[in-house]
């Protein structure tokens, strides 16, 4: 009974979140375009599916994944876990002591990105538009790898306390250089994949990791160092997607020669 109530409440909440988009779409459709929507019934059914699907998805995340993920981020960043004993915590920490944190950051970055619904949407569209040249799974793996590297590097930054803009600005330089060498077809999609990745699944888990680290690493300020992981997670996929296209192009050229 309580479960049904939860589902119902979640659907209501999601509907309220979606309301502005729906009213903009239908407002413009009726007052500006003034033409009936083709397959109206099918479109509305589709919207209902999206709504129900998103509600169930969020409910499941809150029930199963988020509490566990947050708990794990807390446990892994706890100095008592990292040094085996709270009394063994040294005054000056060494960045390499946090190896489990980096491994977790990498793994959770990769796996949450694979499950990200908006990335699935963009990958389906890219596959369709490129007439199959870009595979759904290839793109998703490339983006996930980028997020994984980004979040690992972001955790390293929080542990060492280096200023965030050094990393982001050098990242920009790499992106600019890559842009000149990457196949023209991939560039806009690569830029898009940066913004797409950080959404429903990734943001809450990654934010928990960042805040856990900033709270427990000595000398870090939660308010200043807790932010910034998302920025890493949206910059590195741009590089990995361009690299993926460059490597595929290179492989195709080589196999043509033989």
């Amino acid at each position, binding site marked *: 009974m309580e479960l049904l109530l939860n589902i119902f409440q979640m659907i209501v909440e999601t509907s309220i*979140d979606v309301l502005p988009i729906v009213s903009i779409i239908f407002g413009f459709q009726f007052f500006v375009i003034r033409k009936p929507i083709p397959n109206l019934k099918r479109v509305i059914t*589709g919207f209902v599916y999206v709504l129900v699907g998103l509600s169930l998805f969020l409910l499941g995340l809150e029930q199963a994944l988020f509490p566990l993920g947050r708990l794990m981020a807390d446990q892994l960043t706890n100095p008592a876990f990292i040094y085996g004993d709270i009394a063994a915590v040294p005054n000056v920490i060494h960045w390499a002591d946090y190896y489990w944190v980096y491994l977790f950051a990498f793994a959770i970055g990769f796996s949450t990105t694979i499950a990200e619904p908006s990335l699935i949407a963009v990958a389906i569209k890219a596959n369709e538009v490129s007439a199959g040249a870009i595979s759904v799974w290839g793109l998703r793996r490339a983006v996930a790898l980028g997020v994984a590297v980004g979040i690992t590097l972001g955790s390293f930054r929080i542990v060492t306390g280096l200023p965030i803009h050094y990393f*982001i600005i050098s990242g920009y330089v790499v992106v600019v250089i890559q842009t000149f060498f990457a196949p023209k077809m991939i560039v806009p999609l690569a830029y898009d994949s940066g913004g797409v990745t950080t959404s429903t699944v990734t943001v809450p888990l990654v934010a928990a990791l960042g805040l856990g680290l900033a709270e427990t690493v000595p000398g870090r300020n939660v308010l200043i160092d807790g932010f910034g992981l998302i920025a890493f997670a949206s910059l590195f996929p741009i590089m990995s997607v361009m690299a993926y296209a460059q490597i595929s192009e290179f492989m195709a050229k080589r196999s043509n020669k033989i």
Partner: protein
Amino acid sequence: MQQAIFALLKSMLGSLRDLLPIILVIGFFQAVVLQQPIPGFMNIIIGTLFIVSGLTFFIYGLEMGLFPIGESMANAFARKGSVMWLLIFAFCLGFGTTVAEPALIAVAEEASEIAAMGGMINNNVEAMENYADGLRFSVAFAVGFAIVIGVLRILKGWSIQYMIMGGYVLVVLMTSIAPREIIGIAYDSGGVTTSTITVPLVTALGVGLASSIKGRNPMTDGFGLIAFASLTPMIFVMAYGMVI
């Protein structure tokens, strides 16, 4: 009927496969590294079932509802030929979907706490609320602006590289003069703005526009709207931090 059930089962299996990496990662770290008992095991099983069926429904609905409407609207605007209305629509879509975004509201509230602690604003509830609202509206305005610029780019066929690079240069320049407390939030705000429903809609809009305008390639011109939407909030938030 049997076929429909088979198709549903097949897509649920696909969703399960999407989720499998997370299950493996969490399982490995719990069992091998942390070695702590998992609290509420039953809840986790039920929650996982919800996630799998939710993802299945979402992807079904995506191809039935969100993609077609985004594309049909793009086509209708292209045929109507009114650039003004198209740009107004683009702005509303960007602004309207961002201003109510729960993730953004949460980030704006946290940011106002930082600002109050850092002495940038008065440390009272009213000043903090004003600051959070100001931040939220600047991000929403930035996203609206970004979609307008992105749509204009598709219409005119401008090349995306130089625009994004120009944006980067602006971000770098502003980073050097913006107050330190705002930088982390500004960088993050680019990522949090794009929600699960906005992304498919905006992508369909861009691809639809590029395919219905002559001389535009949906692959090179259709994508890129999201890229603008994650770049401009950084610039606008740092500008907001400097003005206040």
